[in-house]
């Protein structure tokens, strides 16, 4: 019989060592990965102008639209859903906005048309997922094809030029002083997304729904409304992203946004959001998106051709996700 009975350790006062060991390094993997890749490029591509102000701003500008969509996708994946239709919704929205502007000459009607695309698709996606209980993977996979086909159909595959300077300036083309407008869009989206996910009841309920839908429902969370809302927001944000494409490229075209869903999902997962739901990081998603942009930019500067870029990008993503998973 052992009689030595040490007094219990004081609760809530772990030593500094244990606190350090308690840090979950995986949640910082994206920032570490970003820093490492940045440093490598800064060292090896210094002569190719990697560190120049214009190049760095360029990276921001090129990743801005992905970053904006990644903010919404963080909510979708945190709620244990997925949205594969965002890329083609962006394309359809760009086309509808462009057609409305050329028909009416009014930027307002263009914006309304673009937003309407997001609303309609979002309501359809959300309803099918919440009320018919269909898996979001299948619903949005089908929607990917439908939106893409529609955009192609109504434009007969031709680009629709946008001659409205204000629209083009607001949506992606313009600058505010030295700051590119797209950078502002990113900052606003990330700021709103961060506050909503971390500081509001809605955000907590999204995480609870994704973490354990049954327990959330038993606790009084309206899990259907939460699911519907994240699907709706995702489509509306995708529609805004489509208008950013339209403004930046001064035209609506069905190919705008094609394949973006993969970059966006990669950015979100790289950023530490759990693919199984229940945990999400908006800032992480921003850095995931920037990391992808950084890699693209560096590989181009280093002179790799397109096929090589694709392979290297794939490898880097695998390494990054593996690091984020490892205990």
């Amino acid at each position, binding site marked *: 019989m052992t009689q030595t*009975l040490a007094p219990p*350790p004081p609760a809530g006062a772990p030593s500094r060592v244990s606190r350090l060991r308690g840090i979950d390094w995986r949640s910082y993997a994206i920032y570490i990965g970003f820093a490492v890749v940045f440093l490598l490029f800064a060292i090896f591509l210094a002569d190719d102008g990697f560190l120049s102000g214009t190049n760095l701003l360029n990276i921001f500008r090129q990743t801005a639209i992905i970053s904006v969509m990644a903010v919404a996708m963080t909510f979708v994946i945190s709620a244990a859903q997925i949205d594969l239709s965002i890329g083609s919704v962006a394309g359809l929205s760009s086309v509808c906005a462009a057609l409305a502007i050329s028909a009416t000459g009014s930027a307002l009607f263009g914006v309304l048309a673009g937003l309407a695309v997001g609303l309609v698709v979002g309501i359809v996606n959300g309803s099918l997922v919440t009320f018919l209980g269909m898996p979001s993977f299948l619903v949005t996979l089908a929607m990917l094809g439908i939106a893409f086909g529609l955009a192609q159909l109504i434009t007969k595959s031709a680009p629709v030029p946008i001659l409205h300077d204000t629209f083009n300036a607001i949506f992606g083309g313009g600058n505010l002083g030295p700051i590119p407008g797209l950078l502002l869009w990113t900052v606003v989206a990330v700021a709103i997304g961060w506050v909503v996910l971390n*500081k509001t*009841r809605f955000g907590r309920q999204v995480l609870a729904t994704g*973490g354990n839908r049954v327990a*959330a429902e038993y606790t009084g969370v309206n899990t259907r409304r939460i699911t519907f809302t994240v699907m709706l927001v995702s489509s509306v944000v995708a529609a805004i992203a489509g208008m950013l494409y339209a403004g930046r490229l001064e035209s609506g075209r069905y190919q705008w946004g094609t394949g973006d869903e993969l970059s966006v999902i990669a950015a979100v997962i790289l950023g530490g959001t759990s693919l199984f739901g229940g945990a999400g990081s908006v800032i992480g998603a921003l850095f995931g998106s920037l990391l992808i942009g950084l890699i693209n930019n560096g590989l181009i500067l280093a002179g790799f051709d397109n096929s090589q870029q694709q392979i290297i990008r794939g490898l880097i993503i695998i390494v990054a996700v593996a690091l984020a998973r490892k205990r």
Partner: protein
Amino acid sequence: MSERPSALDKRTKRTSAPAAEMRDIEKGFNGTPVLKGVDFTLARGEVHALAGGNGAGKSTLMKILQGVHRKDAGVIRIGGREVDFSSTADAEAAGVGMVFQEFSLVPTLSVARNIFLNHEPRRFRMIDDKAMIRRAGEILQGMGVDLDPRAEVRTLPTGYWQLTEIAKALALDAKVLIMDEPTASLTKTESEALFELIGRLKAQGVGIVYVSHRMEEVYRICDRITVLRDGGVVLSDAVADLSPEQIVAAIVGREVDALAWVERPAATKDTTPLLEVRNLTAANGVTDMSFTLHAGEILGLAGLMGSGRTELAKLIFGIDRPMSGEILLRGEPAGITNPRIAIAKGIALVPEDRRLQGLVLDHSVRENLLLPLLPGLNRGPLVDDRRGDGLAARLIERLQIKLVSANRPVRLLSGGNQQKVVLAKWLGRDPDLLILDEPTAGVDIGTKSEIIERIRELADSGKAVIVISSELAELLAVSDRVLVLRNGTVTDDLDRRDIDDEESLQLAIQGVRS
């Protein structure tokens, strides 16, 4: 280990060596020590109780023996041979089987597939489904369990999950069998079958570690007992030499009163009942159920598994919908079609299955506690986190939840402390009608009497409480009135004063009229 012992040596050594031996085991998580030099010896053919308060380290010790966790220091011997498991597969190969406190089943697979998971009988290198179903059937029959091996696990009530877990361990032909709170979700009859089974295994020389918070079970089936407190052994002796008071005192570290009924002043019944259920019938099995509940009253629901207790709770809380009949709240039709309405009308439900229905396991204790309170925690459009921290801290204090930090995942808490989190999260809302479905599952003895005390306090302050419990002693200790349910209907509505003892309630539950 250079010289090989002769065959005779080996045999004598085998027969004399304990089934399992653990010496000076130490284990910590993230720098917090959980086990501080624990000795534990399990003889062959013995049932050895492992007891202790919530978070004392029982499950951790057993998970080390089972290869789930690695010890930081110490020695483990199985049948006299030193081992160092790095996975559960190692432990299984050495003959250590475990029935987990948290289920380790694949819900989408059949009972038979779960029992033989990773050890499927094969024929021509393909899984032999027929043989598997037959052998699973034999094991279940040997256990005295009436269960179709082809049934998908997720369609079964939780009690059967437990039985499937046990069958799974038995299928491995274990020499050491660890049962972590096996009866926590079993009914009386099922527990009886389990005890019989334990007796049979014991006779076959299997050493069984039995982790339980239930004293009567310890006396009923265990030969020896080891009590852990704060990660150290405080008592290890033959059960027959110990009084229940001695054991409880060792577990809790102080004297605790046994579960006893405290008669409370009868609730005033001339007012409108808080809850009235009239001829309630639903697809979930509830048929033509009627009863009333007044404010200030504690109503116990007794019955077998599948008798309609949990199903009734789900109807009142709006998780399932009735087909016919009425639920009246304060004399008005309740109109509860989902849990949100129920909560808004002052009803709370502590559900049966904490892992599935009660908690978001990967979220922090704090997040879990605050989830039902969020609607009242607004500061403008944002959540008032400062106030939330205070609220969470108070709830943790109130139920004495043992944890390192409220910001760490609830999954890392011990089983009983997880249960306290579920209780605390609803106490925080201060409901008028509190429904508790097996509220003390996995909770230690000291805490159990505290919870019962809390329930009485709630009722004294004018709240109505419905308690569902398979532990009759507890049900009788807390209830003012007991409804006996069978096959979805109320068969008896008994005043607590008219129930003589556990035995007579048991007879009523079984449907034996005296």
